């Protein structure tokens, strides 16, 4: 008697499992829909119970059978993640364009900046050569103008919302807090020093900070440039 019950149970389990099998389901579905067209087959409903676990409930009528190729919607990505966003792309394009200009102008600025530092050797101290001082002023002015353009592109470049700044760019930005004020202060102190020197005076007072401020500014600018160019 017990063996008979076991046999019935086994048969029941077997039938249940067999019914759950997609192969058998597919065969059953094929047998039931002999007269249906292919299109109707696609609209015909409920997918095998096995597939219900794989697809979101709102997709049930279109749920792929286990025999179909997986699609992006099967992977569970949200619509927001897979939707094209042309506005964001345009914003990123503009940002990249402006930062490329920033990079290019920064590199160009480096040339007169180095030349200004080099020309300072003949412009200050005991030297009375006016030509050297004028050259130093001209190079400094050019550096200041190019620096202004470089800064403009960095400051005006749009930043997409929700982006946390990470990596060497943080150091690059931190350096701007040194070379930015330095690029304002250096020419002011330079103008004071130039006047004192032109009047035959020895550079004194706050004007004597022109040299050190300029060196710190140029150093911070160089460090900012290297931080995004060379991996430390």
């Amino acid at each position, binding site marked *: 008697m017990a063996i008979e019950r076991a046999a019935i149970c086994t048969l029941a389990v077997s039938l249940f499992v067999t019914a759950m099998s997609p192969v058998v389901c597919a065969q059953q579905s094929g047998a039931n829909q002999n007269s249906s067209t292919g299109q109707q087959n696609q609209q015909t409903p409920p997918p095998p119970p096995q597939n219900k676990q*794989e697809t979101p409930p709102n997709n049930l009528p279109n749920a792929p059978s286990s025999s179909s190729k997986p699609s992006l919607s099967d992977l569970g*990505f949200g619509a927001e993640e897979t939707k094209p966003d042309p506005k964001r792309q345009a914003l990123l394009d503009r940002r990249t364009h402006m930062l490329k200009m920033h990079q290019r102008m920064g590199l160009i600025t480096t040339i007169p900046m180095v030349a200004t530092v080099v020309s300072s050797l003949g412009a200050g101290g005991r030297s009375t050569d006016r030509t050297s001082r004028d050259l130093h002023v001209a190079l400094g002015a050019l550096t200041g103008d190019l620096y202004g353009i470089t800064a403009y592109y960095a400051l005006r470049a749009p930043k997409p919302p929700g982006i946390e700044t990470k990596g060497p760019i943080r150091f690059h930005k931190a350096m701007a807090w040194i070379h930015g004020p330095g690029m304002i202060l250096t020419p002011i102190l330079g103008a004071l020093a130039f006047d004192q020197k032109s009047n035959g005076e020895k550079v004194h007072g706050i004007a004597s900070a022109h040299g050190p401020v300029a060196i710190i500014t140029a150093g911070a600018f160089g460090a900012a440039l290297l931080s995004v160019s*060379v991996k430390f």
Partner: protein
Amino acid sequence: MNVMIRNSIFFTLLIHVAAFGAADRQWVLEQSTLTYHVSHPLHQTEGVSRAARGKGACHEGQCDFLIAVPVESFHSGDSNRDLHMVQVTRGAEFPMVQVRTQLPETLAGSETIHADLEIQFAGQTAHYKQVLFQMTTQGNRVHISGTIPATLTEFKIDPPTLLTMPVKNDVPIRVEMIWRSQ
């Protein structure tokens, strides 16, 4: 009588097992690490994503796989570079990288596989033939690793430049995946 019933049980179980054996198998991507490598004269950079999702559906001895990963999920440790990567790969317009492949189900126990890959990325589709992957099976889990020899030109991506120097065209993508069968 008992012998008949026993035979019946045995036969039923046999049918049951056979039905199960013939059933379509599904694979789900459980874990993954995808790493792209970019070479520049001044830099060697890697961007890593662990956000890939994948599924494989087997039918009549063939398994169709789809793996997808959001472009923005790759992080290199530099937010500026990552934003530039998304821009240059048109990642806002084409936010997903999709990889499709078809493999015979019989490969399940192999140590290596050569897969033909179709990759949709940056609005382009590229095909890679016979990409070698190493495979380790543990129970119902399969660990797959390999490198996809991707290049920028195949996806019509302008090579980004740093200090006017462009990055190399080769951008190999290291793949580490753990698949689970269902």
